[in-house]
Structures are given as C-alpha cells and as structure tokens.
C-alpha cells in the first residue's frame, strides 16, 4: 500500500501577497506546515534554513526569478527528492519547458484550484516517501555489502593460514590463480611428501562466496596434515571425500584432481572426478595424453561407495601435467561464445616449445576474450616432473638436547592378510618413531626407508610381484592391476616390523627389521655379481646412504636397517 500519511513542510514562494495567502490557506487546510518567501533569493535562503519537503515556486519573481531559484535548490537538495511545483500563468510550451529544465517537477496555473493543488501535493508526497524508502534500502544494502566484504576478507585471512601455499612456489610448478579464487570455489594445494615426492590437489567447489570457501578449509587441513604424515594419495582423497560428504549439504560438491608424484620412482598417480580432462604432455614424444575424469566429484558418495582407483603413469623428467577448472572452457567473449575444450587442445597441438605451453594457453585465452573481458576467473596449473637436483631438500627441524621423549623402546608389529589388505601401517609406525625427538627432523628420511622396505616386503615378498613388469608402459598398469587383485585375494602371509630404539652418547640409534612371509631372494649371489645391493631390480642406494648399515638376513625375506641420529652441536 502506498504511504498517504504524513504532513509536509511546504515552502510557498510568490511575490504576490494575495496569491501567497490563498496558497497558504489551501495548504494549511490540507494539514501541512508552511514557510513563505517573496522572491527567489529568499526562497533559497528559506530552503537552506527550514528544509521544506515540497516547494511551490512562482516563475517570475524579483531579485532572483523562479528558474534560478529552482536550479539552486535542486543542487542543494542533492540526491534527496524535493519536488518543485512551478506557479505560473505562462502557457506557452517554451516557457513550460524552461520550468522543467530548471528542475521543476510540475506546474500549477492560476487561478489556483484547491482540488488540483491538493491532488498534486498528495502525488508528490507518495513519490517522496517511495524515494526515501529506496534511499534507506539502498543505504542498508551498501552497509550490508561492506559487512559482507569485510567478512570475506576475514574468512580469506583464516583460509590463507589454513590453506597456505604449501610448496606451490616450487620451481617445477607454475600456476594462475586469482587472489579471490577461493570465493569462486577454486582451491589449489601442493605439499611435499616426507619421501620427497609431491601431492598436488586442484579443487573446484560448486557455488560462490563464503559457502564455497568454507568447504575448502577442512580439505586443506586434511591434505597438508596427512601428506606430511606419509599417508597415501588414496587414503587422503578418501578422507577428504568423507569429510566433505559429512559437512557439505546435498547438492554441494567439489570437482577435483589430485596428483601423487614420486620423483625418484618416476611414477605418477592421478585421481580425477568431475573436472574437465587434464593433460599429460610427454616432453620427448610431444604426445598429449588425456587424463579424463573417471570419478564422481568429492562429497557425493558415502565412504563405502567412494572409489579410489587411480590412473597410473610412468613419467620422465620434463614431462608436464596441466590441470584447470572449467573456468577456461566456460570463458565467454563478447559474442557470448565459449572458449571450449577444442581451442584448449589446439594450443597443445600447435605447441612449438613445451616450456612455453603455460604462457601459450594463457595468451590464447586472453586473445579469445578480447580487450574488455577479464580473465581472472581462470585457474591453470602446470606441474613439471623435475630432475632430482632441482628438488629442494626438505627443511630440517632443529632439536634441542632438552627435548625429552621415548628413547629406549622396542615394538613388534605383525600385519596379517586382513591388515595388509585394508590398512597402511606406515603413518602409524612413522608417528611412533618420530615421537623420538631426534628423529622428528629426519622423518622424511625415516619415512623413505620404511616405505621402500615395506613396499618391497609386501609387493615382492608377500604378493610375489615382479617389478620387471614395470619396465614398459603397458606393464605399468598391469603391475598395479595385478597388485590390487592379489592383495584382494590374499589369504596367507604377513609383514612384520621389529623396531628398537636406544640412546647413544651423541644421540640415538634406531634399528628396523622388516620381515615377510615370502621366499626371499639370493642376496648373497646378487652382491657377488654386481657389487650393489639390489632387490628385485629396484635399487636402494638411497637407503644405503641414509643408514649406517643395511643387511639381509635369512633367505632374504628379512632386512635389518640401522639408522643413527646425533644431537646438533651447539654453535654449529
């Protein structure tokens, strides 16, 4: 309903006293308050002092005529609506147009008709009220908006602390991500594994604004925490899915691509659900391999239905993986045409130099969008397989002599078939070992040793897989398929950890014995033939450099590793 109520303060400016008296009477009779002026100058002064809400203004007045007075008053009123009704017996269109140009909103001609004047005043009152309401609502919106922006900034600050950039600044990663990408639902995380490799996760949440950003936080926490503890990519992606399934409402999900890159092994595993196909670009053959989404996005399936099947590839130094969210495909130019997947793939096909691909893609999109369009909704990542020297040593934590923890202990932990099938013991064992203060800073090295030996014990000892199978590209996937199958059907077998830690004068010593139920191998013969300690064709020279000693025992299905650590010298 329109607001008809409320009396107004009305300014009557007319140089004729008779006219003024009549108008004043009409207006007061309608219940409004009146201030008067007898020329243009006085009209402006009255306006400034008394702040009337509506003005009846005679066009022709001495000192300053109505037109000039109207102009000044409208300027003073600014964005407020103060209707001006010109009082005039001018009838020609030109004069009336002049009234409007000066800022007049209406006319009232002489002789003054009470009914007409009252009707006009009512109409303008309604308009004024509407205008006021609009202004108030607009002001509220502005304040609200400012609050929202402030909240977003706060949220972003929290998010940045939780999500931080991990190792996105590594020399082998290039990325394009707008600073407010998280509010578009885009998240990019990267972390070094304790074994030296790397996990990278690109996520694209449905929705916009805070709801999209909120989901990203627990995902980042899980990603960084579990990666540093040595959990596998399968375990991490499954955990993230569980978390998101629990906290996100139905219909909200996260399309994602997660990479697990083992630098030393030259292996890469990819999980991709809901994102448009990514690309693995081989540097040597210039082959473009499509990594297509083969899973539902994260947060849709419950834990028991969630599938972790990874796409596995052998990779060489210089190979590059390109990941993106659908922002690139959906970018539209001013003809409303989408950039699309075909144009994106064309960039690869026309590539002259692999190291320019990242820039080429960016330029191609910019060119397509043209001058006017912004491309800050684009998320683009290139992860290059580095050579070993390039990869930075993980920073070591310092330890203090005064740090106390378990220094003398022994653990015997045997995993039988069900445990081998459904459980990864490495994070737990690593956790236990790194409770020793001196070993905390070596967690990477310790993890590498454990992972290597456990993997050997499980795959070669218990599952009896031959790593020679991994020599060719087909053999690669076959190996992993076989591994899954044999593990699933495992009925007998075990892997056992025997861990002992003792303090020494300068620090401590950890002895790890890993034995398995397999047939072992003729380690003596191997050493004789090539002088290196090889086990099923996979070299473990690294372990040799990290450990004080490594010895095979029994029929070769038992390996003992001794690892020493020292307190740091003061002053060194």
């Amino acid at each position, binding site marked *: 309903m329109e607001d008809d109520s409320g009396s107004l303060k009305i300014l009557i400016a007319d140089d004729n006293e008779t006219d003024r008296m009549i108008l004043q009477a009409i207006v007061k009779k309608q219940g409004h308050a009146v201030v008067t002026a007898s020329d243009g100058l006085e009209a402006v002064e009255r306006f400034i002092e008394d702040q009337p809400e509506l003005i009846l203004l005679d066009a022709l007045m001495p000192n300053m005529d109505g037109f000039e007075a109207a102009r000044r008053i409208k300027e003073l009123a600014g964005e407020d609506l103060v209707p001006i009704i010109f009082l005039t017996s001018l009838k020609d269109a030109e004069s009336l147009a002049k009234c409007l140009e000066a800022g007049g909103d209406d006319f009232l001609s002489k002789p003054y008709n009470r009914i007409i004047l009252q009707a006009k005043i009512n109409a303008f009152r309604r308009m004024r009220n509407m205008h006021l309401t609009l202004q108030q609502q607009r002001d509220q919106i502005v304040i609200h908006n400012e609050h929202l922006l402030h909240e977003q900034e706060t949220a972003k600050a929290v998010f940045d602390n939780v999500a931080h950039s991990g190792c996105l600044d590594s020399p082998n990663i290039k990325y394009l991500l707008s600073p407010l990408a998280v509010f578009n639902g885009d998240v990019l995380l990267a972390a070094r594994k304790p074994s030296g490799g790397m996990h990278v996760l690109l996520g694209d949440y449905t*929705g916009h604004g805070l709801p999209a950003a909120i989901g990203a936080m627990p995902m980042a926490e899980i990603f960084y925490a579990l990666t540093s503890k040595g959990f596998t990519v399968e375990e991490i992606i499954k955990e993230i899915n569980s978390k998101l399934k629990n906290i996100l409402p139905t*219909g909200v*999900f996260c*399309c994602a691509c997660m990479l697990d890159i083992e630098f030393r092994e030259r292996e890469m595993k990819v999980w991709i659900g*809901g994102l448009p196909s990514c690309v693995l670009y081989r540097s040597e053959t210039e082959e473009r391999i499509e990594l297509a*989404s083969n899973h*539902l*996005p994260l947060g849709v399936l419950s834990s028991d239905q969630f599938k972790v099947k990874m796409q596995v590839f052998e990779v060489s130094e210089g190979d590059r993986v390109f990941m993106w969210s659908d922002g690139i495909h959906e970018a539209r130019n001013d003809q409303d045409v989408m950039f699309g997947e075909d144009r994106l793939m064309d960039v690869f096909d026309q590539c002259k130099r692999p190291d320019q691909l990242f820039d080429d893609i960016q330029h191609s999109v910019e060119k397509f969008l043209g001058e006017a369009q912004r491309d800050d909704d684009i998320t683009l990542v290139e992860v290059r397989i580095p050579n070993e020297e390039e990869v930075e040593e993980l920073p070591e934590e310092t330890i203090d002599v005064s740090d106390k923890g378990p220094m003398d202990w022994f653990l015997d932990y045997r995993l039988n078939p069900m445990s081998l099938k459904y459980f990864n013991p490495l994070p737990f064992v690593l956790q236990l070992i790194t409770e020793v203060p001196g070993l905390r800073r070596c967690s990477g090295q310790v993890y590498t040793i454990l992972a290597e030996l456990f993997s050997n014990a499980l795959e070669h000892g218990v599952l009896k897989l031959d790593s020679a199978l991994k020599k060719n590209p087909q053999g690669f996937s076959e190996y992993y398929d076989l591994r899954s199958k044999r593990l699933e059907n495992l009925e007998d077998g075990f892997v056992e950890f025997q861990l002992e830690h003792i303090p020494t004068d300068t620090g401590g010593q950890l002895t790890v014995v890993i034995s398995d139920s397999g047939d072992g191998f003729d380690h003596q013969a191997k050493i004789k033939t090539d002088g290196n300690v090889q086990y099923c064709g996979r070299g473990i020279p690294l372990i040799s450099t990290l450990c004080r000693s490594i010895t095979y025992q029994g029929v070769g299905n038992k390996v003992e590793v001794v690892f020493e650590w020292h307190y740091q010298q003061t002053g060194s």
Partner: protein
Amino acid sequence: MAIVSSLDAGTGELTIKVKGRFDFSAHQEFRDAYEKVDSVPGLYLVDMAETTYLDSSALGMLLLLRDHAGGDSAQIKIANCNSDVKKILTISNFEQLFDID
C-alpha cells in the same frame, strides 16, 4: 528457463521437463516440481530435450532430487540430452548415479 512437470497416475512416473538454461535460477521451481505433488511418484524422468545448458548448480539440483527420491534406491532417468549436456554429465560421471539416455 521453464519447468513443466506431469505425473502419470497410472505408472506413478513423474516427468520433469526443463526448458532453456538449467542453472541456479531454476532452483525453486525444480524443487517444487518434485516436492509439490499430489501423490508420491515411484520413478522420475528428467526430460532434457529442450535443455540448452547445464551448470554445476543444476548437477546439485539433480543430486537433491536423488536424495529426495530415496538416495541409492531412487529410480531416476535423465533423457534426451544434447551433446553439451551429455558431456557435462559424463565429466561428472553422473551415469554412476542416474540412468542417462
């Protein structure tokens, strides 16, 4: 964007037809289409014959429908998709949850 729905009393099948762009603006209407029915449908058909475009919020709406229709036991068919729509559904692997034509 317009949503047209019809319930076949005999078969108990609710057909929801989405015309135009299937995006966030369809949210309330799509929901009303399956919530405000006289009797509970046994199966659902989402007809995309006139759907020109599908975005992630539409995928979300399909998930909501599935949840409403019984989750894992829901019987939902998505039919007559054009190639663009089909592509989006494929990338998201929605054929694991819906019967897609």
